[in-house]
């Protein structure tokens, strides 16, 4: 959310985050080599040469699983939110580790070959007509291509240039990349006879990831209350009892169309703001409140709870809605207030 673009928006928190991330990657690689040698997996020079390939590949798979797990984890437990704020750096590190995997493959299997190594990836294993021994490399190449495009378009410029809809849609291809990597592993490393550890790692990671998303979807379905006819009273929607909305949290209510409203409590003040962030459609209702502003859990964009405006000099704005409290019950009018920077949203006592 910078006024003028900078290469990387560093802050103290982000530096610590990245330092921990890089330390964890190094520790994993060191641990992988140590354990593989101890387990006798590198008894010949051939095994020794393929170890870095397996180490970088496993690390990239785990990082991608982590990156995809952060979203549902934060929805299940707010304590994971700090992981979300810098998720794009995990994506970049995943790409870097995947690139290391690709180049160690070039160095080990395709070095000294007269043909282009990228061409070699496709032609060295070309038995597409049979399911057993089906080539696994093209799946990995496609996944790497997707990771490359996503890493190359991770800067804020791209979001603004392409627009939130297109950018977010494009970045959802990360799911396809994950599926392709599972295919790469399924037809490749998992076909070996001595890969019980890898089988456990892949199946365990995929099962954990899918379970987390399922649990988050179920929780979201419970939290997101759909507006029903009986909730409408003379143009006002009955939301919840005042006591049911906890301090710093929101009750999210889905309107009949495509909009959703987050009704927040900030100490004694109840406000209603769009659940959709102006930046990337992030779930504002799941964000934190800091100094009267709700902070989007996806990328940290801030909006004032009563005006819906981003703090100056930014000009982004989200709709805010009139709120009425009657006999301890919160009501919201589903028509947005035409707010301006100087005028607070209408709040009826």
């Amino acid at each position, binding site marked *: 959310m*910078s006024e*003028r*673009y*900078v*290469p*990387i928006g560093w802050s103290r928190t982000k530096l610590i985050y990245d330092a921990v991330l890089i330390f964890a990657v190094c520790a994993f690689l060191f641990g992988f080599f140590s354990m593989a040698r101890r387990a006798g997996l590198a008894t010949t020079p051939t095994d020794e040469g393929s170890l870095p390939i397996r180490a970088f590949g496993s690390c990239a798979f785990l990082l991608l699983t982590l990156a995809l797990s952060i979203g549902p984890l934060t929805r299940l437990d707010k304590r994971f939110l700090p992981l979300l704020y810098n998720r794009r750096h995990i994506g970049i590190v995943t790409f870097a580790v995947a690139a290391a995997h690709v180049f160690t493959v070039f160095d080990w299997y395709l070095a000294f070959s007269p043909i282009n190594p*990228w*061409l070699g990836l*496709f*032609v060295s294993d*070309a*038995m*597409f*007509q049979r*399911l*057993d021994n089906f080539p696994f490399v093209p799946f990995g190449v496609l996944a790497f291509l997707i990771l*490359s*495009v996503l890493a*190359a*378009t991770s*800067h804020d*410029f*791209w979001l*603004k*240039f*392409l*627009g*939130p*809809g*297109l950018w*977010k*849609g494009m970045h*959802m291809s990360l*799911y*396809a990349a*994950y*599926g392709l990597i*599972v*295919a790469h*592993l*399924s*037809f490749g490393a*998992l*076909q*070996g*006879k001595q890969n019980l550890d890898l*089988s456990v790692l*892949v*199946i365990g990671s*995929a099962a954990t990831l*899918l379970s987390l*998303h399922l649990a988050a*979807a179920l929780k979201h379905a419970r939290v997101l209350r759909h507006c029903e006819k009986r909730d409408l009273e003379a143009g006002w929607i009955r939301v919840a009892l005042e006591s049911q909305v906890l301090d710093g949290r929101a009750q999210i209510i889905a309107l009949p*169309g*495509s*909009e959703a409203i987050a009704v927040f409590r900030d100490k004694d003040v109840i406000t209603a703001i769009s*659940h*959709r962030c*102006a930046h990337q*459609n992030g779930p504002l209702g799941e964000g934190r409140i800091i100094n009267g502003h709700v902070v989007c859990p996806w990328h940290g964009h801030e909006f004032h709870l009563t005006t819906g405006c981003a703090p100056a000099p930014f000009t982004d704005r989200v709709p805010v809605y009139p709120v009425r409290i009657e006999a301890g019950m919160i009501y919201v009018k589903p028509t947005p207030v035409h707010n301006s920077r100087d005028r607070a949203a209408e709040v009826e006592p």
Partner: protein
Amino acid sequence: MLHAADITLQVSQGLLAFCSAYVLVGAFVAFAFITFGLDGVDAAAREAYGFRILIYPGLVLLWPLVVWRWWSIVNGASDKPRPVAQHARLHAFAWICLVVMISSLLGIALFQSHAVISKPANTRLEKPQ
């Protein structure tokens, strides 16, 4: 008659030639966009130079999209954010596809792996007489 491996080689060579040409055109488009277009399409890019190196690879990779957005923005097009419900439906669809894909792949992998293990062990052939 061509073997499957020859066909794969020819297809791969063609694909590689196409990719090389694509990247070459992309490099020119990216240079033109950074030099002449960037300041006009995004005010936050004015007098900001360091980030241009970071976006260059993306401009090369996505140059047809860059040309289209450049043209659209210059002609006053705006991007409407996707509604929440539509985004949620797309997200749910992507996840259902992923669940089906991963389950099927791991099922096939385990079945194939078992089939490989069940195969008789390789036997050393006798030296030809």
